[in-house]
């Protein structure tokens, strides 16, 4: 590393040009953005105090944006590793955070300059998500060149969702799950008794950066992959204690209570095919008629040298893709078999995203400003709000929603799964279970 890095801070020419590139796409002052980025590093390195930092920029920020909502006294650098207040949709934007606080509704791009400044500051010193927005820079002590960290995540636009359930079905087919294991689900609810408006919440595993499920697991079977942030279950060591499900506030974990009738042959779109384009070396059948990614066997040219994996093992040899075994916990894997397939057309895609007819789901690398979720978040209307689900649980979810977060007392209403569907699933293995009813049915 060249440049001024005597105290572990990095502002060389590359930093400058990177900063300029990033800041040029927003409407606000590039110089201010660069200065903020530099000083964010100094702040993190403890060279300047938060108050100094605040005072130094308060006026500039007000000049530039017309507002600065930060509290003067904020958290310590350790604490601002993840600042919920500056996150999109956070309730008190900027309050207490190290970066100047400006509300996001009304002007999206003025937040972009701040986010970018935060990233520039954070990238070099390895702070996780100083900007607290879409950027969640993963690894510590990264070089500034490696802004391209990988954190898979999604932007899900609830305003686009029409609750067609294509994603739910595609997920189950892709992963060959039993119909009661809804790794992807769409909640339908109404907010209060006075409006009839029904809203939807599309809910995969949030692949949290601070996942309580991994901490709770007594056998370290539930784990987060360092290289890309996917939260997985090692099916070979999971003991089925369900502690992860207890620890997760989102209800996304599904134990395989019963032996699936026919133990899943795991159909996956990335399975290496034989010359007929149908069956891989392990005899796993590829069904290209399935919804999900369209595969034309003609088009797939398998290079025998090319490493293409496709079984229930991930690229590290962990049994964690596809359906779990009997007695073992499963949940959304962000289609890890696709991410590990080594195939360009599959990496960075998920089954649910592929089938969504309204383009509500955007999967990609949250670290990459060019990725689908980041682009989508940049493109949304300025008055659209965004949120991360149950953010006050401190789980640091990697799904960013566009729309309104369901309030605590949102009432579920029947559908998109009907009661009939629901009771069919409930009675799939347990014929004696009490049938259930949606609250609205009772009234």
């Amino acid at each position, binding site marked *: 590393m060249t440049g001024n890095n005597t105290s572990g801070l990095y502002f060389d020419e590359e930093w400058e040009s990177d900063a300029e590139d990033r800041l040029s796409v927003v409407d606000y002052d590039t110089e201010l953005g660069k200065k903020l980025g530099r000083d964010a590093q100094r702040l993190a390195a403890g060279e300047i105090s938060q108050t100094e930092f605040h005072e130094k920029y308060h006026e500039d920020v007000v000049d530039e944006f017309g507002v600065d909502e930060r509290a003067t006294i904020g958290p310590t650098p350790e604490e601002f590793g993840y600042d919920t207040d500056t996150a999109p949709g956070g309730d008190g934007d900027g309050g207490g955070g190290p970066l100047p606080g400006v509300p996001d509704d009304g002007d999206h791009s003025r937040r972009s300059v701040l986010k970018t400044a935060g990233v520039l500051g954070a990238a070099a010193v390895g702070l996780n998500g100083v900007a607290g927005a879409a950027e969640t820079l993963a690894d510590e002590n990264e070089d500034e060149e490696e802004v391209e960290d990988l954190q898979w995540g999604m932007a899900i636009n609830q305003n686009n969702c029409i609750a067609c359930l294509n994603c739910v079905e595609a997920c189950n087919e892709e992963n060959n799950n039993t119909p009661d294991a809804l790794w992807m689900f769409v909640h339908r609810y109404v907010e209060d008794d006075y409006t009839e408006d029904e809203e939807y919440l599309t809910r995969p595993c949030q692949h949290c950066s601070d996942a309580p499920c991994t901490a709770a697991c007594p056998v370290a079977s539930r784990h987060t992959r360092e290289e890309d942030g996917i939260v997985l279950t090692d099916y070979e060591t999971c003991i089925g204690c369900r502690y992860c499900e207890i620890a997760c506030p989102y209800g996304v974990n599904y134990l395989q209570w019963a032996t699936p009738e026919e133990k899943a042959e795991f159909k996956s779109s990335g399975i290496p095919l034989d010359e007929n384009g149908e069956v891989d070396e392990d005899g796993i059948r590829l069904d290209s008629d399935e919804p999900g990614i369209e595969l034309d066997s003609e088009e797939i040219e398998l290079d025998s040298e090319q490493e293409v994996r496709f079984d229930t093992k991930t690229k590290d040899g962990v049994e964690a893709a596809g359906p779990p075994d009997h007695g073992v916990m499963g949940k959304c894997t962000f289609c890890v078999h696709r991410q590990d397939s080594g195939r360009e057309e599959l990496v960075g895609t998920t089954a649910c995203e592929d089938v969504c007819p309204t383009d509500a789901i955007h999967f990609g690398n949250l670290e990459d400003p060019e990725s689908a979720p980041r682009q989508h978040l940049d493109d949304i209307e300025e008055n659209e709000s965004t949120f991360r689900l149950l953010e006050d649980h401190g789980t640091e979810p990697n799904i960013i929603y566009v729309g309104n977060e369901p309030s605590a007392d949102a009432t579920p209403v029947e559908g998109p799964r009907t009661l009939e569907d629901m009771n069919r699933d*409930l009675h799939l293995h347990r014929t004696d279970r009490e049938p259930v009813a949606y609250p609205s049915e009772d009234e």
Partner: protein
Amino acid sequence: MSQRTDYSLNHLRSVSTGYVALLIVLLAATLLTLEAIIQQVQDGLVATDMAQQGTQAGATWGLYIGTFEWFAGMAVGALAITGYIRFNQLEQYQMVARLSNIWAFICGLSAAWLIIIDLGTPHRVLVILTSWHETVLHSPLAWDVTFVTTLMVFTLTMLVLSLRLDFVKGNPSLPIQTRILERIVTIGATPKEVPKLEEMRRWLGLGLLVLAFTAGMIPGLLMGVVGGQPGYFGSERGIVFLAAGLLTGVALLNLTAGVLRSLFSWRDALSNEVFRGLGRALTLFGFVYLIVLFNDVLPVVTDMAPFFEGRIGEAMVTGSLAPLFWLSVLLVAVPTLLLAVFKYRLGVTVQSIYAVAILLGVWIKAQLTVVEPLLFPNLPAIEGTYSPTVVEWVITLGAMAIALLLFVLALKLIPLAHRDTEVSS
């Protein structure tokens, strides 16, 4: 019934028809339990009514975990009682100390057993041990395994040490199985070591007490550290658990001592004075439990409680779970009040009945504590239901039957108090 009033070692030898009948019933219950377990292992946990919280409208933990908490609590309570008596050298209570020592071990074993039963893949339980070194820092279940193991090691050490002391001090003629036990625990022992053994027993007693009041809270914290479920999280969980454990521990000893006294009329080792003491402990811990419960429940039923907690509190106090909740309160409160008013006057039998009511009351609350929060998901999904299947009932009641079986077998092996010479009947 014989008119003997002194403790004899006769329980080791005599095999009455009642005993044989009890043994047959308990063995049958054990076989039935094994059958249910085989079914559960073959079919998977689908043999239970547990289901995913949320879209499967279920509770993902149920009777097994609730009963685990109950057994673990009794184990801690019995541990504390053993420690208290041994540390204070209350010779009058020596039989109670031995009984509680045996129960602490059996309850610890039963708790561990229920955790294994609850696993989706019970055969993989050893994975917990192999990954223990990396998970013990953060996984409450790994702490629990550590705690239950420590508890069993400590109680077994106390049992061996105190038996060694008893055997070294006096040597009445013993039946063959106890003779073998004596040989084993007195290897290398001489009468000279009696004072040293007495000291060791005393300080180990302190060790048990400390263990009970520190690590003893861990099974309660099993939930207390989980922020994901409203109603679980909270630093008071350990204290709630400990209060329940002390109460059930004392109740279990009241019941056991009451039954043994009415069977054997041991009016020296289980004197009126001993029952007064046990009754006082039951009253005290009954009130402690109720106060702690009140403090646990009151904040969540006020209108100022956070929404999710409030919803659970409401279900418990006035809603769908209210009948069970109030039943559990009454089963503890009524006997506690009666004991406070009438003290010992109603006699040993009534005190034993109180003990049964209290054990049941705390057991019901233990189930509610586990299940309540799981029935109410955070996201807008429908409320869950949970009504345990026959398999779950058989396995749960079977765990209690197996614990009792172990205890009645122990009665034929382990002298319950020290005797220099045999009392003839």
